């Protein structure tokens, strides 16, 4: 999923109530419009096509875990005035922090390539031209928008345009899926066939939903917007409601793919097949709506990823970082996102399979999650940083169990998936 724009700015006391409502609304819109990205679309479609509604539980658990973690990122920044990368280095020292940050750097690079690939794929669906044609123009456009400092506008723009993804909800509704089967899918069950692939998709869903870069993005945004303890209520509401609605859209993708591809025994081997899941319900609108959703969501996610990586590096090494600042005042930060985008764009030119790259980067994300999330949780329970706003037992339990289990299953499953031919 995507982090979404941390909503609103420093609150003005007079218009506080109205502002809060607006912030919450914007947070929820961002949660909905910004939830899907290349990973959640691919994993949800694959889950539905191969196992109908049986994997909905993985999405539900991951979404609940995400609600908690998003709320925590905002709370950490609002109370301690530290972003995640800042606080982890300060508390656990450089020799520890270099491990999760290097792993994230590698994963972010893969996911950024996958997101840019998603945008190119969307353009390919509409024009029929190959991905390589679009790789460099798309990368340059993403870079230019960050470079010109229009992030907030682009963020809110892609979130609003991201409401296009509601087409999946419309399609799911039109299929009238049997409610009993959908609810049954929310209960974890053991598969009857392809069990290695089943668990591989399950952990890929976790990796696609809980993306570590968003913690950096969200906590950095909260610091730029000067959040304080008064922001905590807004933070909780918009993280909880926004992400829940967002998870609902990913569930709609599972339901649509499960209603269209599963009965016909169609396996997803290529991106080009995916828009067909909308065909029976949306007809000639299927391809443009799918391409629009994919393109907008992946583009927004690519911008966030490039910036989140630059935030992470700047906060680990103590460089200036601030998206609102002019690039020449923070040269290393600007060079960091420029280099990330450039390398990802070049990797796309090699013509690697974007769908495979997406699935494997999501699974790999699940593997590294504990290294990112466990120190994060320790901070969230530390009164030195959170004062009286430390975590409760439920948040701790949900996050630890989800993350550790997902990582263990990932370590077992990825070799099996690789041995079995992948995809």
């Amino acid at each position, binding site marked *: 999923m995507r982090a979404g724009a941390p909503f609103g700015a420093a609150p003005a006391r007079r218009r506080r109530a109205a502002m809060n409502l607006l912030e919450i609304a914007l947070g929820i819109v961002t949660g909905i419009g910004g939830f899907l990205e290349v990973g959640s679309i691919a994993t949800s479609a694959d889950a539905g096509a191969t196992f109908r509604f049986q994997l909905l539980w993985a999405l539900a658990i991951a979404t609940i875990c995400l609600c908690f973690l998003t709320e925590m990122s905002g709370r950490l920044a609002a109370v301690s005035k530290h972003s995640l990368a*800042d606080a982890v*280095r*300060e508390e656990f020292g450089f020799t520890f*922090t270099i491990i999760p940050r290097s792993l994230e750097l590698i994963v972010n690079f893969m996911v950024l390539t996958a997101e840019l690939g998603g945008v190119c794929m969307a353009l390919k669906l509409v024009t029929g031209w190959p991905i390589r044609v679009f790789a460099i123009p798309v990368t340059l456009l993403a870079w230019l928008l960050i470079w*010109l400092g229009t992030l907030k506008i682009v963020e809110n723009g892609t979130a609003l345009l991201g409401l296009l993804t509601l087409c999946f909800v419309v399609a799911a509704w039109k299929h009238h899926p049997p409610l009993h089967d959908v609810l049954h899918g929310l209960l974890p069950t053991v598969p009857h066939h392809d069990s290695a692939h089943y668990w591989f998709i399950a952990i890929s869903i976790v990796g696609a939903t809980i993306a570590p870069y968003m913690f950096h993005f969200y906590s950095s945004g909260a610091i730029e917007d000067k959040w304080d303890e008064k922001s905590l209520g807004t933070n909780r509401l918009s993280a909880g409601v926004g992400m829940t609605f967002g998870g609902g859209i990913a569930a709609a993708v599972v339901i649509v793919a499960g209603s269209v591809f599963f009965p016909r025994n169609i396996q997803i081997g290529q991106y080009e097949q995916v828009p067909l899941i909308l065909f029976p319900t949306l007809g000639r609108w299927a391809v443009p709506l799918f391409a629009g959703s994919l393109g907008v969501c992946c583009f927004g996610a690519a911008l966030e990823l490039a910036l989140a990586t630059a935030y992470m590096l700047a906060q680990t090494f*103590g460089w200036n970082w601030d998206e609102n600042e002019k690039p020449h005042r923070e040269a290393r930060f*600007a*060079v960091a996102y420029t280099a990330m985008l450039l390398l990802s764009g070049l990797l796309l030119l090699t013509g690697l399979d974007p769908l495979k790259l997406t699935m494997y980067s999501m699974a790999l994300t699940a593997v590294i999650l504990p290294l990112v999330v466990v120190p994060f949780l320790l901070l969230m329970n530390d009164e030195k940083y959170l004062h009286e706003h430390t975590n409760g037992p439920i948040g701790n339990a949900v996050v630890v169990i989800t993350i550790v289990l997902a990582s263990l299953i990932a370590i077992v499953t990825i070799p099996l998936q690789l041995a079995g031919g992948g995809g």
Partner: protein
Amino acid sequence: VRLVGEVLDQQIVDSKERKFGKVDGLVLEVNDEVNGDGEARVAFIEIGSPTLGRRIGKRVERWALAWNRRLGVRREPRYRIPWSKVLDVGVDVKVEIDGKDEPPLDWERWMRDHILSKLPFA
């Protein structure tokens, strides 16, 4: 005497609110003659990749020094700030130095002058 753990790895901010690097290392001095108790005091804050490298291992430190020499951008790979220049330790470590032309920002300047200035719409 400040606790080492409280300052090490914190963000350093200069007198112009510029992010100046992190506390990559601390230089302690044990002054028996003044205190007579062998108590360690923080004498300097150190900023620089060899200081960071040393915390991982001697080999990484040597490697960082060699690269610093080879690239020749940073004038002084280990930059020391005397503890007397530290104004405040809170969320950040505030120091009484204008970092603009100091070695910790050599790379920042180099990237601005050699990369950013060559990009369009700079």
